[in-house]
């Protein structure tokens, strides 16, 4: 009987070699980070044998750098390590909130930003937050590294832009401009442990007077992939996030959404609450960016 195999390369070169040689032999490989989605899928729907390539031992996937220019979050870092990093929390509070919302304390011990992105669930909590923060995916292959914007990384339900032989090493975030902050909110029926029915990540930049000069709004669980909604951002820029502006941003998000009805919510419900979440997240982001309450 065919079985699984497991490899835990210690260096990136070794990892890329493993991917290459198995590809040549037409052996299916699967990258493993925290495994909190992958193991469930392996057990329930996808029992085909393959070689599991654990990327948790690579230095590139374990680096966390909240630096002068950029922030770099290694793809395999477990949530607990991100929520515990004070610098990261100060710079991207909404992103860390999104990380913290994934599953239980136990899940936080394993689940990673890279895994959440690669799993490409429409409801992945970190994805709208990554997009709102202008996250860029750093991807390695035998040919070197390439970068693509996070909003382009997820290409469909459960599908990402990685080509065979590629590894997502981490996500790079530009250092937020002055008076910039972010927030992520999702809606779930319980207080914890559910999959988002809708989510919204918002980043807001204010000028000294408290006027919004830039914004990014991304929504989740209301379309096959998380969506960047420029129209919602546009509704906020130039305003002081007055109720009318928030209303307009929410409405734009609602218009941009393409939700489905499933066991977790209806089309109408998702359309309705995604607007609420955008309004609320924008307000929190602005407060964090220094807006007067």
């Amino acid at each position, binding site marked *: 009987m065919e079985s699984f195999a497991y490899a835990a390369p210690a260096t990136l070169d070794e990892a890329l070699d493993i991917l290459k040689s198995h590809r040549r032999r037409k052996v299916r490989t699967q990258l493993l980070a925290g495994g909190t989605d992958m193991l469930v899928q392996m057990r*329930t729907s996808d029992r085909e044998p393959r070689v599991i390539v654990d990327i948790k031992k690579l230095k590139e996937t374990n680096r966390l750098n909240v630096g002068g220019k950029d922030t770099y979050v290694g793809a395999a870092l477990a949530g607990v390590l991100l929520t515990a990093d004070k610098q990261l929390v100060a710079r991207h509070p909404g992103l860390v909130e999104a990380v913290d919302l994934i599953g239980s304390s136990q899940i936080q011990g394993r689940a990673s930003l890279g895994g959440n992105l690669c799993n490409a669930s429409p409801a992945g909590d970190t994805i709208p937050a990554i997009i709102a923060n202008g996250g860029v995916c750093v991807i390695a292959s035998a040919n070197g590294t390439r970068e693509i914007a996070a909003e382009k990384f997820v290409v469909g339900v459960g599908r990402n832009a990685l080509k065979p032989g590629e590894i997502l090493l981490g996500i790079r975030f530009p250092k937020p401009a002055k008076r910039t902050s972010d927030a992520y909110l999702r809606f779930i*029926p*319980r*207080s914890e*442990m*559910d999959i988002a029915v809708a989510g919204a990540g918002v980043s807001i930049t204010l000028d000294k007077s408290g006027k919004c000069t830039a914004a990014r709004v991304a929504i989740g669980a209301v379309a096959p992939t998380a969506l960047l909604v420029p129209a919602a951002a546009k509704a906020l820029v130039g305003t002081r996030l007055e109720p009318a502006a928030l209303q307009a941003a929410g409405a734009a998000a609602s218009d941009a959404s393409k939700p489905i009805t499933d066991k*977790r919510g209806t089309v109408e419900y998702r359309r309705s609450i995604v607007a609420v979440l955008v309004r609320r997240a924008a307000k929190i982001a602005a407060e964090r960016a220094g807006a007067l309450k």
Partner: protein
Amino acid sequence: MSEARQFNAIGRRVIRPDGVDKVTGRAAFGADYTLPGTIYGKVLRSPHAHARIVSIDTKKASRMPGVLAIVTGADFPKVGSEEITGGEGAGDYKDLATNVMARDRVLYHGHAVAAVAATSVAEADAALAAIKVRYEKLRPVMDIDTAMADDAVVIDEQLFTSGLPEKPSKPSNVATVMELKRGDVEAGFAAADIVLEGTYRTPTVHQGYIEPHACLATINQGGQATVWASTQGHFDVRSGAAKVLGMKVSDIKVIPTEIGGGFGGKTTIYVEPVAILLSRRSGRPVKMTMTREEVFRASGPASATKCVIKIGAKNDGTLTAMSAWLAYEAGAFKGSSMAPGAMCVFAPYKVDNFLIRGFDVLVNKPKVAAYRAPGAPQSMYACESLLDELAGKLGMDPIDLRLKNAVEEGCQAAYGPKFNAIGFRECLEAAKRHPNYSVPLGPDEGRGVAAGFWFNAGMQSSAEIHINEDGTVTVIEGNPDIGGSRASMAMMAAEELGVPYERVRVQIADTESAGYTNTTGGSRVTFATGMAVIQAARDIIGQCKQRAASTWGIDGDMVDWADGKAIPKPGVNADVKPLTLANIASNAARTGGPLLGRASLNARGAGPGFSVNFADVRVDRETGKLDVLRFTAIQDVGKAIHPSYVEGQLQGGAAQGIGWALNEEYVYNKDGVMENAGFLDYRIPVASDLPMIDTQMIEVPNPSHPYGVRGVGETPIVAPLAAIANASCAATGVRIRDLPLSPPRVLAALEHAAS
């Protein structure tokens, strides 16, 4: 019983005897047993909700690596129709057998079709995938309205509605009709100042015990089987497996493991007979554990219901008439908890005119099982909701409305007999006085009140008490300890014998080592088995007095038993020292042999349990989400043997009821496939969903029990559904009659009300 009795052991908050094993991981639950040579059984389940099985081909699977046995329905004996003499929902052995393994048709998605035993779970799973089953799909019947429609697909062509004056000419999905009535209901409504009516629906929900069903079975060449099973009633596993497999009861020994929750769901059998048969075919011990998905798809949930309630009242709140039309889904086989639902619905109230009609309805879902006060939460949710509406219309406090009509000792219950001592009025009065009832509410917050009721059961129990040579005490009984009952048994034995609690050990014995004992269910254990333990202790005391008398050379009736010692009665002229249990035990060989006390009984006089709950909730008007801010559970518990575990029953029942009200439901697609068969999307409350649950125990002693005990385990789940729904209505201003009150439903109702 004597009201003034002072207790030594009972009423204390002692540490349970099995506690250390349970906090250190040593306690062995269903899946924790393995024998040398154990192999693993897995079940192939129907991918269709309703289909005819055309053929099953196991040839390829039987040649797969590691596969040692395969069985299908054809390998099981034919079981004739025979009523299971249990309570509601117990059904028929033929149905039980067909539920364990489908024969010619599959009746729900997840129905067992075949089973494999292999040397590993992975090999068993691989073999299941290699079994080829051809089905001819039939149209599934998935809800009450469809099942009861004139042109409904009939699930069982042999099923003719029972309970009607004459046998119907056509088969139907309605298995049973039941009617209870008193007075003239139409005249009662005509005499009312106000008449309200409402239709309420509740979804299919699951008990949600954390431990999946699990067993280990082994059978020898002589045909004698031993089964380790996680069950509420190992004697029922024995009788059920014997019927399904055509075995003698004496050829099956069932050893109860620790049980990781049941709530009624582990009162029947699923994998146990399959494991025995696979063991017979393979010659090896076979372990079977359900996955969580299997638990949802193939064990017994609680009925979805549709209830229509009508209430007539005078302007002062006096009820003049009540009627109920109650339809309960039974699942694929007859036997829902409709009957107790019908008997409970108006039980808390005095009303001269009522009419209750109940319907037990087949649908293509798993056969329902008991779930904590089975049947009561659904019908009483409906009635208690409509009473809340009535209180609102009359401008009455909802507790006052209930006080106006509350039953008390001597009142005739809607289900027939007169109540003995009950504590409903006391619960209502305690609720009214409770500080939580006057906490001011903020914006978007609302408070809801509801009452609950459950009969509580008695039934058969056995107990033995052995006095060991050092005077320590071993109690042997036959009820799996699902929530601390070893502690209450030990406390009652200690109380009677007058020895410290710490000197008593309780053993839950297997079917060959304990006397026959009915299931751990019906809130009966502390009451009925407790009574057996008390009687066995009294048997010991009688023997000890005799032993002391022979030691002292006086008459047996000249000896008293006090504070754990035999003493001569006042006035007896004997210069003797009191004899402790240890003294008597150490001398037992010389006075007649070992000290062995026994009792077996069929307990009567289980006192009914009443409760009053109230909840405060807050609504988020933009998302429709309800948060529970405060929850207060008040219940007449008779006499709390171990107060902490009684409070725990009230709190746990409240949490389950809150889950039922807010989020729990089976979500089915159009093909009859459950879409949320896991704890991710079947949303039971998590720690952060709930506030502290405040409890108040009212103790109105049950006159039929030596200490006043009445069952406490089931009543707590009854009232929360309506308490939450009524609070939701108060917070939102909108009455939603269908559960669960999930955010989409609440938001839709708010939007509908605004438009």
